[in-house]
């Protein structure tokens, strides 16, 4: 499809859905409420939304959906660190019942016992999986959960009179950037540890950074390189030795479910991403959901109301004076909590362990296939296995051909595969990060590796082909530099029309040209 922007579909007079009119009885009582609005409240003209009949709206967004590659449609192993796994369809059928979708959060508790029990059971399951004392499901995603971690840490130190003294947080470069960023927002100075020569988090650098000013260490493990820090317990103990807390970002937990637990390594707080590890769909970028686990001493600081059980009855307890308060409306991303509960129940303890083991097996299998491609490498910890993902490098290929990792990723999309490079900064040169999870079959991993091998070959034999990609996409090479210039960026249709007044004419001309080109074989 060459589907227009929705505004271009507007046909005056068309309606997509109708809303009920004011009833005569209501009008008789209240008069013309719009006319009676004070001038400062009355909207002078209708908003310039498009007018489109329902079927055309359906067609528009269905066509856009077809121009998108969901995890269900492609071999989505290229979004390393994102843990793209199967979101079971049965969970969609379960959560879409009106008895979940159409519940108000402030209904009488006796009318929501089912969902309260699910929240309670999910908290218990997460506590068991992490080994932590208590879990809150109130946060709306991984980074929000990181925020809650640091907010609790801050509250804890303040409660102990050390709020002013402890003004530093230590993280590692291969931990998710939100650990650093959220700590900064919470008022901390951020210290970032780089890997040692072997690619493991540098424990000597940690020792040097720790002091009585340290509020916490906030680390991901395994890190985004797929390397598990074997000295993680020492890290935690070192932090504790200076009175700091240890916070564990478990975004990469998929490979260690049932293998090792946060609390067993001594962590005080940790979080999971339900949309990464527990099979809730990623929703084009959310909603996700977070689970914050804490030790007994941090429990009073957990956010929001918590669900408690009294015999067979479940209820909300919001009377918790040391709580950091609300981190979000109400009780978290409820549909995802229900999906995660369903996912855990579908698999059980044995299944969770099988998930981890197969995810790790798949990852090491794919690593073998990738490292067989000339020009690809996996920096750090040479010869060691990885857990659930690998940060690879095309540096050799780049030196040989001048083709960057980004260009290879774009060209791979011509074959229906894709990857992203990794978070900035590119500590690993020409990076790409693959995480196959447990969801893809061997045949699909082979298919993926074959595509990368093919593109690597093209980089040598026909670099221009790679550099000018994409060739088989909905859209062609896009001028992204427009988007970094305030004078040129078009952040909305209205801004576009304002900045590019001749755009509509160009568009029409382009459409004609495209039709003419389509006529050519």
């Amino acid at each position, binding site marked *: 499809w060459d589907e227009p922007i929705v505004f271009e579909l507007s046909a005056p007079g068309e309606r997509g859905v109708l*809303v009920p009119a004011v009833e005569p009885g*209501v009008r008789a009582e209240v008069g013309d409420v719009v006319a009676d609005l004070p001038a400062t409240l009355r909207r002078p003209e209708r908003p310039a*939304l498009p007018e489109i009949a329902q079927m055309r709206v359906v067609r528009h967004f269905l066509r856009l959906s077809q121009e998108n590659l969901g995890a269900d449609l492609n071999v989505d192993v290229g979004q390393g660190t994102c843990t793209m796994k199967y979101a079971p369809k049965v969970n969609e059928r379960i959560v879409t019942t009106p008895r979940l979708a159409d519940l108000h959060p402030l209904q009488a508790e006796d009318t929501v016992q089912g969902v309260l029990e699910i929240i309670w059971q999910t908290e218990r399951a997460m506590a068991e999986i992490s080994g932590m004392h208590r879990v809150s499901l109130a946060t709306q995603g991984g980074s929000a959960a990181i925020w809650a971690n640091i907010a609790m840490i801050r509250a804890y130190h303040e409660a102990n009179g050390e709020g002013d003294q402890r003004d530093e947080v230590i993280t590692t470069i291969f931990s998710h*950037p939100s650990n650093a960023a959220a700590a900064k927002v919470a008022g901390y100075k951020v210290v970032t540890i780089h890997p040692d020569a072997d690619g493991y988090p540098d424990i000597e650098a940690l020792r040097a950074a720790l002091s009585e000013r340290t509020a916490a260490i906030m680390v991901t493990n395994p890190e985004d390189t797929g390397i598990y820090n074997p000295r993680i317990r020492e890290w935690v103990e070192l932090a504790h030795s200076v009175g700091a807390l240890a916070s564990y970002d478990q975004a990469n937990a998929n490979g260690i479910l049932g293998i090792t637990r946060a609390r067993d390594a001594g962590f005080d707080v940790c979080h999971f991403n339900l949309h990464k590890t527990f099979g809730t769909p*990623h929703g084009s970028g959310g*909603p996700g959901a977070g689970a914050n686990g804490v030790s007994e001493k941090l429990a009073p600081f957990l956010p929001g109301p918590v669900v408690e059980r009294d015999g067979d009855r479940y209820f909300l307890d919001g009377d918790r004076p040391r709580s950091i308060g609300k981190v979000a*409306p109400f009780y978290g991303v409820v549909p995802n909590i229900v999906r995660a509960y369903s996912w855990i129940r579908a698999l059980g303890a044995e299944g969770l362990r099988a998930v981890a083991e197969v995810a790790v097996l798949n990852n090491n299998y794919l690593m073998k296939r990738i490292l067989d491609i000339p020009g690809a490498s996996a920096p750090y910890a040479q010869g060691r296995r990885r857990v659930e993902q690998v940060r690879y490098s095309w540096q050799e290929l780049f030196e040989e051909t001048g083709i960057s990792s980004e260009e290879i990723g774009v060209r791979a999309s011509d074959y229906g595969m894709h990857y992203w490079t990794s978070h900035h900064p590119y500590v690993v040169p020409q990076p790409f990060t693959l995480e196959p999870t447990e969801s893809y079959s*061997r045949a699909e991993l082979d298919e993926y590796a074959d595509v990368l091998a093919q593109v690597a070959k093209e980089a040598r034999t026909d670099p221009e082909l790679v550099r000018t990609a994409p060739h088989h996409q909905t859209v062609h090479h896009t001028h992204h530099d427009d988007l970094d210039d305030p004078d040129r960026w078009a952040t*909305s249709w209205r801004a576009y029309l304002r900045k590019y007044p001749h755009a509509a004419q160009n568009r029409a001309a382009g459409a004609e040209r495209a039709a003419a080109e389509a006529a050519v074989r």
Partner: protein
Amino acid sequence: MTQPFVHPYIPNSDPAVRAEMLAAVGASSVEEFYADVPPELRVQGSLDLPPALVAEQDLERHLTSLLDRNRSTRERLSFLGAGTYNHHVPAVVDEVISRSEFLTAYAGEPYEDHGRFQALFEYESLMAELLNMDVVTVPTYDGFQASGTALSMAHRITGRGRVLVASDVTPDQLSKVTDYVRTSLELVPVATVDGTADVAAVRAALDDDVAAVWVQTPSFTGALEPALPALADAAHAAGALLVVTTDPIMLGAVAAPADAGADIVCGDIQSLGVHQWFGGGHGGFLAVHDDPRLVMELPSRLFGLASTDVPGEYGFGDVAYERTSFALREEGKEWVGTAAALWGIAAAVYLSLMGPRGMAELGETVLARTAYAAARLGRLPGVAVTDTAVHFRELLLDVAGTGRTAAELRDAARARDIEPGVVVGEHRLLVCVTEVTAQDDIDRLVTTLAEILQESAA
């Protein structure tokens, strides 16, 4: 592999396949991959979890039996609001966001995920029309987060340390925002008068340490703030910003805050096509004018339209990506992560369906029904509406005159399968009506409360 566990969610769980894959990588068992996990950290035995329900039918039966213990707002008449609202969700919205292509996508690049970029660009653009502002980000988590960030932006822009809270802000929102910004900002309440801002008091409190005047409209009680222009003028005169938290659902009928001079407009999009989800269906929006001073302080992703190698073709990408923590870690603006993109797509579909007339009519219908509810409920003996402001969707009743507490009245109504509103004080009940609350429904509430009051009087 400890033992074979074959499951539909795990393709390579067949023992023979696993053995072949292990052989391919030269490992004798999965244990080798965990060489870096010290033995003392290894889980011994099995986690203590409820038994697996591996047959889909058993899983579905279990979950459904739990969920069937809930009773929804379709089954019981609900006047509950206070942040989560029962608006109609058109079927087309659910159709689109349940498409696998959108539901299961994540962070693909502009080429393979063209549809997601376009849909979210359209979300931004449709919101921009409603808000009369050129820049609206991809959704953040919820309105609370959006408000927290809006005030943080005001701090970063002005370098100042206080915020004047000019409205009756939703208490839970105040809780979140207070903790979120407290490193840099102190929130100073300025008491409202008759439900809306005390402009004179705000003006008096403004000084050169005020980063922003913060208005929530509709307020916690549903009151619409008529003095936005005056508040904007006052804030601007003092070098402060006007930050307005609002609900875009009303903007088909009610003036856009930007037109009154608001600098940052933010709030929640749950009303725009997202179910109530027991309070779990929220997304936040942040809007500013196309002014780099403001745009460069936005922490969220922002998609923009760009040209491509084909003349006339639309491409998409991130606007000013270098603002974000994805790009700069702690040197970025606050932080960004997986938030609520799917609800943004829902809102895009919703606004495309509603169009200008739909939004205008919906605004009128809700305004009228709110006024109707206020009139009818306010005539009940001992019941009074707490203020005379114009209300949208919600209103606050004072039931002290009935001789009964709000909780008592609520419990009596619940026994008749009506949720009459949210109890927000000993004698205060916050009542919510939307376009799904028909006149008959309001009449039923009035009649029911009248009966309850009569019984208690007898």
